[in-house]
């Protein structure tokens, strides 16, 4: 390991209103090192990194870059300090080529006009070759696979001369084989002397790729450890602050009648692409069906087809013997089909962020009230009971839900769906963004519903969790079901293979 510290942050404090996001955090990364920044959601990882990328500025504390004190006042300044950040959601212009995206904002660096463009192309090509990257610089971003987009992002920061690269959850959208390729690239960047920070909460990846690990919890830096000298259990203990038994229950239930029967359903998305292709499956009462797949493999369309939000082009969907196709969403809700679909931003589809708990818990059943008036008192009653039953931490039931923490928002959402005694519960990413303790509470809630005979579709991203909680796992890839396996016999490798559609993925 080289001796020069690429980043040294000391006693960094940053608060937003009354919330202290970073409390005297110290953090340092060397050149030629891959350093994992680990912590649960809300632990302060993103805040800390955003102070390096110039989005936030610390309230107090000091930052040294490459041994010199740094005052990072803006994203532009951050680039001048040779820091590059690769965000979880790519910041690329779809209609431009890889080359234009890479050169964006720094065109003058290699000269103007056609010659500058050529020169840059050669430069970028050389750099890519040295990293073993296969990039087609004239390809437009909208034609790229997720892996190619990420490669473009990496080239962008490197071309700007960044020697310090921060990656925010880079593996979230990749298939297992794409992840392997990304890790190879990261290792080569490290050999070339880059300092790499990877923000993640996936412990397996941390153990595989990083040299050292810094764990944050509740805005404080708990410890920095050498990866070789630690293990997953002790990392979890540092993240959560206590020992956690990592066993998810899979209660054996008597599976009842077939509740949901998908019969050769095909859905065409708004962009005229086939989003679900001839999907058939059955779900029984008291069963949890896990749905695995890389983001965008048709999970959303599956959920929307069940709830009547998307019209199926072909096929039939039977719910307790009734065909759902052609029914209005409100009719399907009144049949007892409940959906808690948690999109990436969590608030976008299930809840209204600016509304209070009362307004939000009424969303699905206000229609059942008589007359044209809205009875908020009924909503308040329900909100109170959900807060109590699901232990939602909130200042009051009149607080806008956007002000609650992720876990509590999730509890409001699931609480609302469960509170209505559903027969079928569709839940997507129900623990996304939750800490481990809160996640286990959600698993318990789902299992409780399962025991009551509710059929549950669990769209998930963490394969370990899916394998443990589901009775069966259905794997999707590109809108097609590539396999359905008994979860008690499933292995991660098997699921991962099916997620990639059986081929090697498409990173290059």
């Amino acid at each position, binding site marked *: 390991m080289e001796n020069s510290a690429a980043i040294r942050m000391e006693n960094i404090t940053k608060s*937003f*209103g*009354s*919330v202290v996001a970073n409390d005297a955090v110290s953090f340092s990364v060397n050149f030629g090192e891959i350093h994992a920044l680990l912590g649960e959601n809300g632990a302060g990882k993103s805040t800390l990194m955003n102070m390096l990328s110039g989005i*936030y*500025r610390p*309230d*107090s504390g000091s930052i040294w870059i490459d041994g010199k004190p740094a*005052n990072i*006042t*803006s994203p532009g300044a951050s680039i001048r300090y040779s820091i590059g950040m690769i965000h979880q959601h790519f910041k690329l212009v779809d209609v431009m080529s890889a080359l234009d995206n890479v050169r964006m904002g720094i065109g003058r660096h290699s000269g103007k006009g056609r010659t500058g463009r050529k020169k840059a192309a050669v430069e970028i090509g050389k750099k890519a070759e040295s990293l073993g990257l296969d990039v087609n610089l004239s390809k437009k971003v909208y034609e790229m696979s997720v892996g190619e987009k990420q490669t473009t992002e990496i080239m962008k920061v490197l071309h700007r001369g960044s020697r310090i690269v921060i990656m925010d959850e880079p593996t979230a959208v990749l298939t297992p084989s794409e992840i392997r390729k990304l890790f190879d690239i990261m290792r080569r960047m490290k050999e070339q002397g880059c300092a790499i920070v990877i923000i993640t909460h996936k412990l397996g990846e941390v153990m595989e790729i990083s040299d050292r690990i810094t764990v944050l919890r509740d805005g404080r830096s708990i410890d920095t450890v050498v990866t070789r000298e630690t293990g997953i259990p002790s990392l979890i203990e540092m993240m959560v602050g206590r020992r956690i038994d990592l066993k998810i229950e899979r209660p054996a239930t008597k599976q009842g009648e077939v509740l949901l029967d998908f019969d050769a359903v095909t859905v065409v998305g708004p962009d005229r692409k086939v989003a679900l292709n001839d999907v058939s499956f059955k779900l029984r009462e008291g069963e949890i069906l896990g749905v695995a797949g890389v983001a965008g493999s048709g999970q959303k369309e599956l959920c929307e087809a069940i*709830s*009547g*939000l998307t019209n199926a082009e072909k096929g039939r969907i039977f719910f307790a013997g009734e065909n759902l196709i052609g029914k*209005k*969403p*409100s009719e*399907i*809700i009144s049949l007892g089909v409940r*959906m808690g*679909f948690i*999109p990436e931003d969590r*608030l*976008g*589809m*299930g*809840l*209204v*962020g*600016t*509304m209070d708990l009362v*307004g939000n818990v*009424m*969303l*699905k059943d*206000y*229609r059942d*009230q008589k007359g*044209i*008036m*809205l009875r*908020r008192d009924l909503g308040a009653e329900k909100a109170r009971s959900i807060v109590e039953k699901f232990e939602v931490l909130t200042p009051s039931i009149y607080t806008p839900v956007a*002000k609650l923490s992720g876990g509590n928002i999730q509890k409001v959402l699931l609480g609302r769906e469960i509170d209505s005694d559903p027969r079928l519960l569709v839940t997507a990413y129900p623990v996304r963004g939750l800490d481990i303790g809160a996640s286990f509470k959600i698993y318990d809630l789902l299992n409780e519903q399962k025991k009551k005979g509710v059929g549950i579709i669990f769209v998930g991203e963490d394969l370990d969790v899916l394998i443990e909680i589901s009775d069966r796992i259905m794997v999707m890839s590109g809108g097609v079901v590539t396999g359905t396996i008994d979860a008690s016999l499933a292995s991660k490798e098997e699921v991962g293979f099916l997620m990639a559609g059986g081929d090697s993925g498409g990173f290059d």
Partner: protein
Amino acid sequence: MKFTPAITQRTGLSTRQSVTYRAIAILLSVVGTGLVLMLFGLNPVRVFGAIIEGSMGTPIRIHQMINSAIPLVISTLGIIVAFKMKFWNIGGEGQIVMGAFGAAFVAYRLPDLPQPLLLLLMAVAAAAAGALWALIPAAFKAKMGTNETIFTLMMNYIAILFVTFLQYGPWKDPARAGFPRMPDFSPNAVLPNLFGNNIGWVIAMILTAFVYVFLSRTKKGYEITVVGESPETARYAGMNIPAIIIVAMAVSGGLCGLVGMIQASAIEKTLTATISAGYGFTAIITAWLARLNAIVALFVCVVFAMLVQGAAFIQLSLGVPAAVAGVVQGTILLFILGSEFFIQFKVRLPERRRRTV
């Protein structure tokens, strides 16, 4: 040293704090306007005094002020219903004009009906015409996702030019010897007065209560709010979004249409192409100032009407140019709308700078 203040989103500002901030903004707007006036060599105390005197000094001035507050209040209510759904209806002008047209159509056809019946029919026709004018862009938005901003704006010009055509053409009053003006309404088609003002002020108060209850206490109002805040959530909750857009815009346009009826019947006593007098646009400002709250809007509109009328008065009494009146209005608006920024965001001077001071 570079001056870069840190701007962060505020969290958890209590109601009391935000009320305080707004009060400070109003105070500052008065001080700021005063400074601007002094820059012009005017005595701010006299100018403010004249504004109040001009809008409230005599019973007649009060009546006039209320007369201009009535259309402003009702147009603002209409805009609030649309904006609550984040449907940017800037077609208030056109909806007012079409409302006036609807009222005039009834008034010219059935001039001899008994007054209450005739006025009721005029109101219904006006609301229907205004609603229809709003429904055209609403239907396109609901079915095809067209941009309502441009659409509603363009509809204004169609409405105004249509009535201009009537004024110069088929509906021109032959008795006016070539002067392009439409005939006056029959006395039965004129709104009666109550306590010295046309009865529109009672209508405005009733409608304020109606819109407040509609938006905060009915299922439809709840749906409108959800669609405005998060269309995706509304979809997932099984709401019929196109139907909600249609209902909300019918109410919005209907309210604006009523403004046209009141103005045509009580103020102009005829139909003119300029009947909307900018109320449809001013209502956008007042709707924002009232933060889309109907009750607050009532007060905002009265203050706004005072300002407008007082500004006209100072031109006469102090002999200042019209531009000064405009500056007074503009400065006050700048401060009050600007205060929203400080309520939403916290601005902090950079650390180092503070230390060196």
